């Protein structure tokens, strides 16, 4: 235990926390997206999936785990950001970035905006505060009609726009994050660096396009709210 306390007291130890929680969050994002894709299969699929999740005996374990991982990621990020800021009390009058990308320089900002979106997203679909009139539908099998809530919800262009914007921000966060974590855990070799860059960009693009396809297809009228 004493070992771990010493490890997480260091900057690299806390970067390990960022990388491990980052991988786990990316894993969650992939499974969350795949689950939500059931919307394209129709009402039965999505409501079945939603009811299965809601009744899952480990639902609260999973929620607690996610909250812990997310909380660790955010708290560690803030502690590192404060230290990194303090390391240069007097800045340059003129400073040019030579190699840093926009996504690396604004990772704290993109992270905080993703956090803001997450709160909005939970308020929207988990707590039903954003579009309360769409929250109480029940389907024929007496399940929460998640399908209609989602499909009618995303027919609102403002709602769809906010989700698309948030996913672009998430993609911006992960453009740096996904490749950065590989370096953090100590993997860097010219024989596979290109593969990592291509692989992480592909993964992030797939996440952004996949997630955006849901609200955009709905707004474009490709998903029938009355479909079974």
């Amino acid at each position, binding site marked *: 235990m004493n070992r771990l306390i010493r*490890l997480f007291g*260091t900057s690299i130890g806390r970067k390990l926390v960022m990388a491990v929680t980052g991988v786990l969050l990316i894993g969650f994002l992939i499974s969350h997206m795949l689950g939500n894709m059931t919307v394209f299969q129709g009402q039965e699929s999505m409501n079945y999936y939603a009811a299965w999740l809601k009744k899952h005996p480990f639902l609260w374990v999973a929620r607690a785990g996610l909250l812990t991982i997310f909380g660790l990621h955010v708290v560690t990020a803030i502690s590192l950001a404060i230290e990194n800021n303090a390391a240069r009390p007097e800045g340059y*009058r003129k400073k040019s*970035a030579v190699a*840093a990308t926009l996504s690396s320089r604004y990772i704290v900002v993109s992270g905080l905006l993703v956090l803001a979106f997450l709160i909005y997203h939970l308020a929207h679909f988990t707590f039903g505060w954003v579009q309360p009139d769409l929250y109480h539908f029940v389907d024929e099998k007496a399940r929460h009609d998640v399908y209609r809530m989602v499909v009618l919800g995303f027919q609102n262009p403002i709602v769809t726009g906010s989700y698309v914007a948030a996913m672009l921000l998430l993609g911006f966060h992960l453009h740096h994050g996904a490749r950065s974590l590989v370096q953090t855990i*100590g*993997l860097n070799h010219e024989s596979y660096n290109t593969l990592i860059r291509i692989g992480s960009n592909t993964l992030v693009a797939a996440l952004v396009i996949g997630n955006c396809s849901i609200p955009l297809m709905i707004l474009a009228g490709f998903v029938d709210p009355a479909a079974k």
Partner: protein
Amino acid sequence: MNDEETMDLRLHVWRQKDSKSPGKMVTYRANGISPDMSFLEMLDVVNEELVTAGKPPIAFDHDCREGICGMCSLVINGVPHGPQQGTTACQLHMRHFRHGDEITIEPWRARAFPVIRDLVVDRRSLDRVLQAGGYVSVNTGSAPDANAIPVPQDNAEAAFDAAACIGCGACVAACPNASASLFVAAKAQQLSLLPQGQPEREKRAIHMVEAMDREGFGGCTNHYECEAVCPKGIPVRYIADLNRDFLRSALTSREVKPLPPAVDAEE
């Protein structure tokens, strides 16, 4: 040399009397500068004029002026060591500038590098990090036989590349977090890649990282600005190596004593 070959410049230079006084940017003219001069020689010209006029010259660090000692430390137009990649400020020539250019010159900026005067900063924090583990212990006495210890060729090359670090601190100056990771990685890996560096390898990784944090450098967020400005082209691959070494040592080494307090060398 005829007049057309020289150039006139406007310099915006950080002036600060001592570590306690506030500093400010001051504008100077550098006239009649030859493109064959080095950047430091250009500053020498300005300083001679200042001294002749009875004003205090611009203080800047330098020693070898041939790119090997790591003393020169100027942020030129927002880039440590200036626009020419793989080149120290002392080896940067004025032909990379044009007549009429405005050039901003600032000191390395980091909490761990307090300004001593003008463009001179105190970089002893780097020495203290080295003191924490950037060494190998050897027995005195007769010299060991040459080639008695086999060293894989690849490791020898990699250690040599890391050893190219001249400890100038440009990596710190360039990093948005003022992190010394590239310096620490190079100084740790140049030893840890070799058989002679193995006995102290775990302790070295842990103590150097702890010392780096203690000195108030920031952490690495993988921007790779350091690699881009390093006059010796040290790659960030060594930071990954250090991360791996550090994480493995911190999690699995048998015993590593707490980091001892730093002692400053004589002034």
